[in-house]
Each structure stands twice: as structure tokens, then as C-alpha cells.
């Protein structure tokens, strides 16, 4: 078997497991909206997007379910996705000189803007992982709240504080949501894509 074929097979197996995990969650939480986010890299790490309402319950389920036992939240981080304009080709039917013809038109589509928190989960008990779960805010402006998963995994405590500090996501239910790396009266969120540093390097206090 060539290495690419092996990688392909591995992807399929992993995708299947993620589907299985999704089904397992759906069986326990029929109302939860789950979505598998594909990953274009050869790393075979697709992720599972959770909804806000069920996120903490699902996280507890992932941690405690005897077949899954994702007892270890390893890497917790944020990603900023500002609005982006994507050019898309769409086919339209037009009547030209009385004949209907199919034409291609290029249109601009705006992607939705949001902040994301990403959790890489492993199981120390069963030795498997990573399971990548994601949570997305409604937008990047006035509604940047997400449920905190610190009550489920203590390892999220400092990492969610860091996301709050550098990306500005408000984690609801976090026991101690303060800035961690920047100083307390700093006003902006430096990891956002549109962050502009001030000339002096200091922000007016």
C-alpha cells in the first residue's frame, strides 16, 4: 500500500469514528445541533461543531461516557474569522435573443464573521484522541459569548482566560475570567486579525 493510500484509509477510519461519536452524542442529546467540519490537510483531524445550549452537557458526556472517556482537554485555543469576501461562480439562466442559455456569473459572497474556540481532547484512560470540538460565537461584535468548559476540565481555566484576553470571547460560567497575559487595564484583543497596535506600543489607560 502506498503511503497516500494508507493516509486515505486512515482518514476514512477516523471520519467514521467521528461520525460514530456524533451518533453517540445524538442518541443522548437528540435536540443538539452538531456539525462535522472537514479538514483539508493530510492530518486527518476533522472537528465537531457544538451548539451553545448543549456544549457543556456534551462535554461532560464526552468526559464520562465509558466508551469515550475524553478525560483530558489538552489544547484549548481561539481563532478569529473576520468577514471575508469570496468570489463564487454561479450558473444562471438567461434569455438572450429569445433563446434560454446557461451562463456563468461571478458573484461576491460574504462569509459570516465569528470567533471560535477549539478544544483538542484526548483520553488518558483509553489512550485515544484527538477529538477536536469547536464552538462559534454569533458574531465578532456584540455577541461574543460562549459557554465555558472549565467546569468540565480544569485544564481550560488558564487557556480560556487567554482566549478571553487575546481574542475577547466571553466565557460564561468561567470561575475567574480576567486578563492573563496583557495587563488588567489593556483595552483591545491583540490576536484579532484587525488589531492595530498603537504607535507607542501602549494603549491609553
Amino acid at each position, binding site marked *: 500500500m502506498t503511503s497516500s493510500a494508507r493516509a486515505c484509509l486512515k482518514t476514512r477510519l477516523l471520519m467514521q469514528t467521528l461520525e460514530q461519536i456524533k451518533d453517540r452524542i445524538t442518541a443522548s442529546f437528540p435536540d443538539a445541533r452538531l456539525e462535522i467540519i472537514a479538514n483539508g490537510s493530510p492530518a486527518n483531524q476533522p472537528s465537531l461543531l457544538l451548539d451553545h445550549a448543549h456544549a457543556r452537557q456534551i462535554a461532560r458526556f464526552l468526559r464520562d461516557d465509558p466508551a469515550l472517556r475524553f478525560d483530558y482537554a*489538552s489544547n484549548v485555543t481561539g481563532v478569529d474569522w473576520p468577514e471575508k469576501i469570496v468570489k463564487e461562480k454561479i450558473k444562471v439562466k438567461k434569455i438572450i435573443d429569445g433563446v434560454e442559455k446557461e451562463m456563468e456569473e461571478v458573484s461576491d459572497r460574504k462569509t459570516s464573521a465569528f470567533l471560535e474556540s477549539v478544544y483538542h481532547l484526548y483520553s488518558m484512560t483509553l489512550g485515544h484522541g484527538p477529538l477536536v470540538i469547536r464552538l462559534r460565537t454569533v458574531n465578532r461584535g456584540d455577541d461574543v459569548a460562549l459557554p465555558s468548559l472549565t467546569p468540565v476540565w480544569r485544564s481550560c481555566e488558564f487557556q480560556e482566560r487567554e482566549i478571553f484576553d487575546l481574542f475577547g470571547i466571553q466565557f460564561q460560567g468561567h470561575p475567574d475570567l480576567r*486578563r492573563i497575559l496583557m495587563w488588567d487595564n489593556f483595552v483591545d484583543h491583540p*490576536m484579532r486579525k484587525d488589531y492595530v497596535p498603537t504607535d507607542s506600543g501602549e494603549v491609553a489607560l
Partner: protein
Amino acid sequence: MMAVSDLQTSRAGDSAGHDLLEVSMGPHHPSTHGVFRMNVVLDGETVVKLSPVFGYLHRNHEKIAEKNSYLASIPYTDRLDYICSMTNNWAYVLSVEKLTGLAVPERAEYIRVIVGELTRLFNHACLAGFLLQDMGALGTPLMYAFREREKILDLFESLSGARMMCNYMRFGGCRCDLPDGWLEQAAKTVANFDSFLDHFEALLTGNEIIRARSDGVGVLPAALAINAGVTGPGLRASGVNYDIRKVDKYGIYSRFDFRVPLGERGDVFDRYMVRILEMRQSLKILEAAMRDIPAGAIIDPKAKLRNLRPKAGEAYGRIEGPKGELGFYLISDGSATPYRFRIRPPSLINLTVLEDMCLGHTIADVVIILGSIDIVLGEVDR
């Protein structure tokens, strides 16, 4: 040692009444191993509250990396945990290899294991030295460890041109091949390291003062360690068998026969002892790797170092660094710079439980509990 609840009752019943004292320890305090600060609330000498303060060394490495090419970030990773630049390089290039699907030639894999395990050796030896320094054994144990570290740094210098900021690994392999005679020199260093360890242990392990200071101090229960994401020797000292070299078998670690030392009680002494035993296992790995290393290429000919543009996607790669799980999470949007570059710093996350380990102990114990966690502020603050 009084439990915290006992303390509170004794305070309530104290008719003379005494106030708690809040002390700011650090950022410039020799025992904090860099610019780390703790706000400690003390009842007499006993800790009742502790909150760490971070950020004194923060330069937002992750943002800098978003503006740099993939290649240009390698020297920045040297400066994370500046004791262990080789393993930092390794974790980063491993993640880029996952993101791009690059293969690594055999010889390069062996070289990575050799320099990685050498790094683990001197990291653990220095940690033991610093820990003893924190206990009051000024100078001697640390200088013994530093003497051995010098020999390994000499090897790194002849290999990479730099003693500490090695900038040695590349995606798909390593930057340059081993110089002539390097392996022989390394074999000598490794052979001598075993007798150094015997000497070091004869001096320290059974020492009554060390036992009195470290037994039962800063106990970390296994369940809490797992939930708080503690990794590395600190986790294994609490009895959890989790070593990423065994779990992920990244690189060629499946070929080596080594054991994972575990502690029983999770106290400061166990954390010290686990590191000593890990060094013995590293020596076994090193001997095997230096015996079996094949000739051949040291970098994948397909590896494109400059102007690397991985396909849009993401990857998380991790290694068992000397301090714990060191991971890099990369998102590519298809351009020549990473869209997101995230470091999972073991030093920061291992500090999550610092307060839990210190409550009820004296301020002098805080110093050695922190010393036994093993942090480097370049990695904590990034």
C-alpha cells in the same frame, strides 16, 4: 501539616486575632525561575490562598508567527523553553509535517531522537539541580548538573553552531548532518552520564534533609492531575501512565525499548525521582539510537523550506517534551504564512494546580513545589 479546614477553625478560635498577610512573591525573586509572580496570602507562614500572575515575558509569539513564513518561525520556537530548543523545534516541525504530509528520512528521525533525548537528560538534571538549590543546597548540585549540561551543549554547538538557540530541525528532516566524530563524542558523553547519575543520586536521593523537605509536600492526586491537564513527569509522579512517546509513538519511538517510570504519591520527592529514573531510560534510548542510526539523507528532497504553502486545513501535532505535552496547532489558509499558530505550553498548563498543591503548606514549601513543577517563563508567557 495542618489541613486548610483546621487552619480556619484555629483562626476563628484565636482570641488575640491576627490578620492574614498578602505577599507578592516575584517577578524578581530567585526562586521563581524567571519573571513569575505569585500573590500569596499567608496565615503566619502557612499559605491560605495563592494566585499566579503571568505576562511579564509576553511578546505574543503567536501573532508574530502569523506574519512570518513557516520557516521563519523555527528560530522563534527556540526561545519558548530556552533550555530545550531542540524539542521545541521538533514539536513545531512535526506539526508542519502533519499539516503538509511531508515524510522524514530514517537518519533524520534518529538524529531527532538523539538530540531530543539529550535535551531531556540535561533538562531533568538541571531541574534536579535547581530544585536542590531551592531547598537550600546552594550551588553544588546545580553546578554538577551544569557541568554535564556543558558537555551536551558542546555537542549541540558542533552540530548546529549554537549552544542554546539551535534552530536545527526543518520540516521533512534536519538542517545539517552530524559532523565527523560527533557520534563517538556523544557516545562518550552518554556513557559518562550514567556514572554522573550514580554520583548525583548517591549525593541526593537518600539525603535525610531532602527527604524531610520533599516527602509528602505538594501532593497532586492523579484524578486532579488528569482533569487539570498536567503532563510530563509531574503527571507520571502522580501515578498516571501517560507518555506521548508511548501513546502516539511519533517519529520512531515505537522501535525503542524503554519503560515509563511512575510515582506513587505525587509529592515533590516523586517528581524528583521520576525525573532521575526517566534520565536512566533516556540513556537506554540514546544507546540504541546511536547504535542503529543508518546512513542516508537527512531531509526529504520534496521538502520546500522557503515559500512553503500548505493546502488549506489544520493540524495539531504534539510531542513529549521534557516539561510535558508540547503541541503546536496550525491553521493554513493556503498562503505562505500560517493563518493561526498556537503553542500548547506545558509550563503554563502545569501551573493550573499550583494553588491546590500549595494550600496548607508553608511559604518555604511553595518555593520547592514550584521548583518541582519545572517551568520556563519563555514558554509560560510566550
